[in-house]
């Protein structure tokens, strides 16, 4: 009996920034993931930023983060011998995950139809920007463009400035993680009847899903949500979500209705430090529900509350605010930087961050985020370092496919690997 969840399964990974996370998740769950790279290296090796801003095949932070734990083989898909190697690997694999432009692999004899015949068990997952059949199926789909196409961008930013994307592109991560779920669903279908299938992931749709159901606002409320800085809608009102504090920002959900106890506790704390208006101490916060705001009441109170809260927050640091919020069970959290997160006591207590030796790091080791889930019987595979380009050529091509060392040398010489 295996001690990891998906032990014994093998996936071929032919993705780029639009899906490397899929193979990472499958690998964390125990699948052997073989990253097939062009001889010049996977595109993910060239994604900036780089470690210490020095480009190099093993220095892309994106590559380090999302290709770690995979095996690397090289194969030139523009030469018949390279294509043949991938075909032979895919004949033995349980999953093939790819994010090439629609049609690219078909043209090289590596499309799904090819494998429906050769390996009917194969789950063949295509991660696409806009789906495989719509008018934009062949559009060039870079991350920020998908972030815009899926509607997220229109909801982030200030009204008088351009719509925003996050500093770390997110659409490809959503698509990659969604592809892991979809591939595992197809794996379950295969368990029933032994047959694989094609799976298509749509990154644009993955972004739409992050909008918290705003899509229905125009039809149901007759208004079109747009970016409005730090305001968000809650219970029929618009509330301020982010406040300045002594050393940065905090986020606070100051809403009533079903959350009345937490706002009351917050007002109590403000009062202790002399920042609450009298009416706030006696206010029935339960009333602060949708009907109240929709009938026009509450807006002035909300404005006054936010002003008091802002003055109050400025007197304390985000650390102090968070510590007290934890104690009083308030809906306040720091706007954390990665430095704050690295020092977080809860993550430390749970031993979340894990050291992984790797001579490519300035300190001889990387520190990775740990398991995304804690399973009592079959834990997530601990983080491993990212592979060097073609590191596993011999192991995979000779060990798995049974090639003679001489044949391997010939493939190198031909530029097939």
């Amino acid at each position: 009996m295996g001690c990891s969840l998906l032990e014994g399964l093998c996936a071929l990974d032919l993705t780029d920034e639009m899906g490397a996370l899929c193979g990472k998740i499958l690998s964390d769950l125990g699948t052997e993931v073989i990253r097939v790279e062009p001889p010049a290296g996977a595109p993910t090796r060239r994604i900036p930023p780089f470690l210490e801003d020095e480009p190099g095949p093993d220095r892309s932070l994106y590559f380090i983060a999302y290709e770690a734990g995979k095996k690397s083989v090289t194969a030139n898909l523009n030469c018949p011998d390279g294509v043949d190697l991938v075909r032979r690997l895919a004949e033995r694999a349980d999953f093939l995950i790819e994010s090439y432009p629609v049609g690219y692999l078909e043209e090289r004899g590596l499309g799904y139809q090819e494998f429906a015949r050769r390996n009917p068990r194969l789950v063949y997952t295509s991660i696409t920007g806009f789906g495989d059949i719509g008018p934009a199926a062949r559009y060039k789909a870079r991350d920020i463009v998908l972030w815009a196409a899926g509607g997220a961008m229109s909801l982030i930013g200030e009204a008088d400035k351009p719509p925003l994307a996050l500093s770390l592109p997110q659409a490809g991560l959503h698509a990659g993680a969604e592809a892991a779920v979809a591939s595992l669903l197809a794996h379950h279908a295969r368990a029933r009847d032994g047959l694989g299938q094609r799976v298509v992931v749509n990154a644009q749709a993955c972004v739409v899903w992050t909008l918290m159901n705003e899509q229905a606002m125009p039809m149901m409320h007759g208004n079109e949500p747009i970016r409005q800085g730090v305001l968000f809608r809650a219970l029929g009102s618009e509330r301020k979500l982010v406040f300045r504090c002594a050393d940065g920002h905090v986020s606070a959900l100051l809403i009533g209705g079903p959350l009345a106890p937490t706002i009351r506790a917050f007002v109590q704390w403000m009062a202790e430090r002399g920042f609450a208006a009298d009416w706030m101490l006696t206010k029935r916060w339960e009333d602060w529900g949708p009907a109240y705001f929709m009938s026009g009441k509450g807006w002035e109170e909300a404005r006054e509350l936010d002003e008091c809260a802002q003055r109050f927050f400025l007197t304390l640091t985000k650390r102090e605010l968070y510590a007290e919020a934890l104690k009083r069970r308030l809906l306040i959290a720091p706007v954390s930087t990665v430095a704050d997160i690295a020092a977080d006591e809860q993550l430390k207590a749970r031993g979340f961050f894990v050291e992984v030796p790797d001579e490519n790091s300035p300190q001889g080791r990387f520190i990775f985020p740990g398991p995304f889930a804690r399973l009592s019987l079959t834990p997530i595979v601990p983080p491993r370092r990212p592979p060097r380009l073609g590191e596993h050529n011999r192991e995979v091509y000779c060990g798995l496919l049974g090639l003679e060392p001489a044949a391997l040398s010939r493939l190198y010489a031909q530029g097939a690997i």
Partner: protein
Amino acid sequence: MGNLTLEGVHVLDFSWVGVGPVTTKYLADNGAEVIRVESQARPDVLRLAPPWKDAVPGINRSQFFASYNTSKKGILLDLSKPRAREIAIRLVEWADVVVESFTPKVMKGWGLAYEDLRQVKPDIIMLSTCLQGQTGPNALYPGFGQLMAALSGFYYISGYSEGSVCPPYGAYSDFVVPRFAASALLAALDYRRRTGNGQYIDISQFEAALHFLAPALIDYFATNRVLGPLGNRSDQYAPHGAYRCADESGRERWIALAVANDQEWQALLEVLGGKSQDSRLATMQQRLSQPELVDQTVSALVRNWRCAQAVEALQAAGVSAYAVQTCIDLHADPNLSAFDFWHWLDHKEMGPSPYEGLQHRLCRTPGELRSPAPVLGEHNDEVFRGLLGFSEQEMAELRRERVIF
């Protein structure tokens, strides 16, 4: 039906709000029978949140709730009553998977912790998800995805420059974590199928969400660099951002685009009519080091274009571009339609309502939105009488004691 992937899998779902219900939705839409246990006294807060049918609030009128609870059954049970626990335990015997998303002490308080469930169903898979995980000093911290998105670093990297915070919309981590939770759950179900073993899964939403920031965290630990808000700046693409096109019907239109190399840049200039631009921006290096000048140049070029025409022309020339779509645009998007993304389901109280469909397609065994979300307690009878076999008399008695409704 008959060909759904997870047919025969039984899920007892005590979860609420975002992460739990979105996770079990994956199972429900793929054929698992999911019974959501809800409380009359403390309804799911999403039931109290807009958008509402006709903008009128009501416990069964929230599309926010409906969207995340398709294909599920709903029952009402007051778990603070001892007899409710007996009913819950009988449902645990029926279930393969139990999911909950309370703060860690709640299930324990009801005598429904994993150790309890295991007694009656040794091979049960139980998944618990709360903001910060079941253990550690902050395990009991309550909250929502908005706060988690701030705590886990997403807010800080969303803004125009240092000191500006423009958060990603809504409870962002609620749309990150379920993809990890569902992956773990599906793998655990597969393991159980092969070995007969269930297990307990603890998903800290904090920990799962951080995987979407992994490069920045690894960078910080290795070199102390703190990733900040960059506006729409990129180290990889220039131009990279959203640029205002001509207004249409009094509405702003913006185009998003990203240029990866000099060839694409030349194509962009040719398409948008900027061929005579100065040579200061000809190379990637020049453009990456002068982002303001790049933005000014592109802004001037697209300002009089109709957005859709600019997108079409740029894509035809090999430049990645698309409209910055609003919620209204999304419903008219031909690609989302071609993917069969939108579904109108006839909800018991709301009538035909717009649901987001699936973000992927299994070509041979596709999932589907099998039914709209349940109204509060919609399947009480079906579950208590049909599944558990309570008699008329028992039902009446339980209702009288306000255990069921």
